[in-house]
């Protein structure tokens, strides 16, 4: 047998091994077992998880900015601390998810670098501006509402660190949704101007909120793999429908009108039918052409750049102490 043939046989054996490993891996997932960082996993699984988790973490961090925009203008001391605590939680949640992703062998700095270079994405929703106090309500109610529907699913996902981070996050995020709704509730009970503020905010945030749950299933290229691996538990369209069904009655309680003339209860489906989503807008925003993409990324890059000397100083201080002790 010549060398070439030997090589081929080796390759074939390797492929068979790999296939066997992948089958075992899939069987574990199908049995409902959690995959832990040190377990064998297909390279594609690792890559997709890193992509998904870092995107999620980036969304938490960039997501601090639109709400951060109103911290200094919160209209009462109580509202101020509520909002501060909420935005701070987002930092914490970003941190938990980054840590989870780090167990897959990528550093947080690397992920942040991917965000800053534009290689990694984050949720489209945070590229819209916050133009009034009511937007703090709309974000808490709609954006966090949509996120919660999504995150409760991920809490059951097959990757241990992601699932654990998400369980913690879901527990903490409980109040976010409520504080948002309560802001709008106060406005809707308030003066006509306040109510108008609330309606305007819903008008601007409704469509972006239902878009943020991702493209329809037919345009969602990674969905099938992710669902097989149970790192995505439900399709975008299913989650979107659940979110809409949950949210419409809440809008009615507020006395606000959802800006969708086609929105109608469908008795047969026991669900709401809704109008066509402007996917062109969605893809534009995802690809950097939203109203605030440039500002959001710049704010993150600035924070990174302006903090560099601080991080360096702490490293150097530590090095000096270690030397002193030696």
């Amino acid at each position, binding site marked *: 047998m010549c060398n070439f043939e030997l090589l081929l046989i080796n390759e074939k054996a390797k492929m068979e091994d790999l296939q066997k490993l992948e089958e075992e891996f899939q069987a574990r997932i199908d049995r409902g077992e959690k995959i832990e960082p040190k377990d064998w996993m297909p390279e594609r699984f690792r890559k997709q998880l890193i992509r998904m988790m870092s995107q999620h973490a980036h969304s938490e961090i960039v997501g601090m900015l639109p709400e951060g925009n109103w911290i200094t203008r919160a209209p009462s001391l109580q509202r101020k601390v509520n909002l501060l605590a909420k935005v701070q939680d987002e930092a914490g949640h970003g941190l938990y998810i980054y*840590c989870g992703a780090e167990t897959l062998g990528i*550093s947080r700095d690397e992920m942040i670098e991917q965000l800053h270079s534009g290689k990694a994405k984050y949720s489209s929703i945070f590229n819209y501006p916050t133009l009034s106090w009511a937007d703090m309500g709309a974000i808490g109610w709609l954006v966090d509402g949509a996120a919660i529907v999504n995150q409760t699913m991920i809490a059951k996902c097959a990757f241990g660190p992601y699932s654990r981070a998400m369980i913690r996050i879901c527990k903490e995020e409980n109040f976010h949704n409520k504080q948002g709704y309560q802001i709008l509730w106060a406005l809707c009970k308030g003066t006509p101007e306040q109510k108008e503020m609330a309606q305007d905010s819903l008008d601007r945030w409704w469509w972006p909120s239902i878009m943020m749950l991702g493209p329809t299933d037919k345009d969602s290229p990674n969905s099938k793999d992710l669902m097989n691996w149970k790192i995505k538990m439900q399709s975008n369209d299913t989650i979107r429908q659940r979110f809409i069904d949950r949210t419409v009655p809440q809008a009615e309680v507020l006395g606000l009108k959802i800006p969708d003339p086609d929105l109608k209860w469908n008795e047969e489906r026991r669900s709401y039918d809704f109008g066509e989503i402007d996917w062109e807008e969605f893809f534009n925003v995802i690809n950097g052409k939203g109203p605030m993409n440039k500002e959001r990324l710049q704010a993150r890059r600035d924070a990174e750049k302006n903090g560099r000397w601080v991080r360096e100083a702490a490293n150097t201080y530590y090095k000096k102490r270690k030397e002193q002790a030696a």
Partner: protein
Amino acid sequence: MTDTSKPENKEWPLWEVFLQPKSGAHHAHVGSVHAPDAEIALQNARDVYTRRQEGTCIWVVPAEAITSSQPDDENSFFDPADDKIYRHPNFYTLPSEVKGL
């Protein structure tokens, strides 16, 4: 001797955080933080993981100092305990009239 004059832009190392939820309880792993040294790691852990009064005591451990068993070890590490059911109290049947055992 290392050169301390040159600033170093390397990422702060990772620390694993263990929280004791109340006195008397075990410390349990809750997550990690990045920090340049132990004191800052402790403060960061406090600020990140006890925002809702979750604990009474925190340990921080450099992640690189942790030695973990590997998935391959699983069989030899944990299966041998499988057939030692006599370590569990319900293995032992006792006369039903006996008290305090």
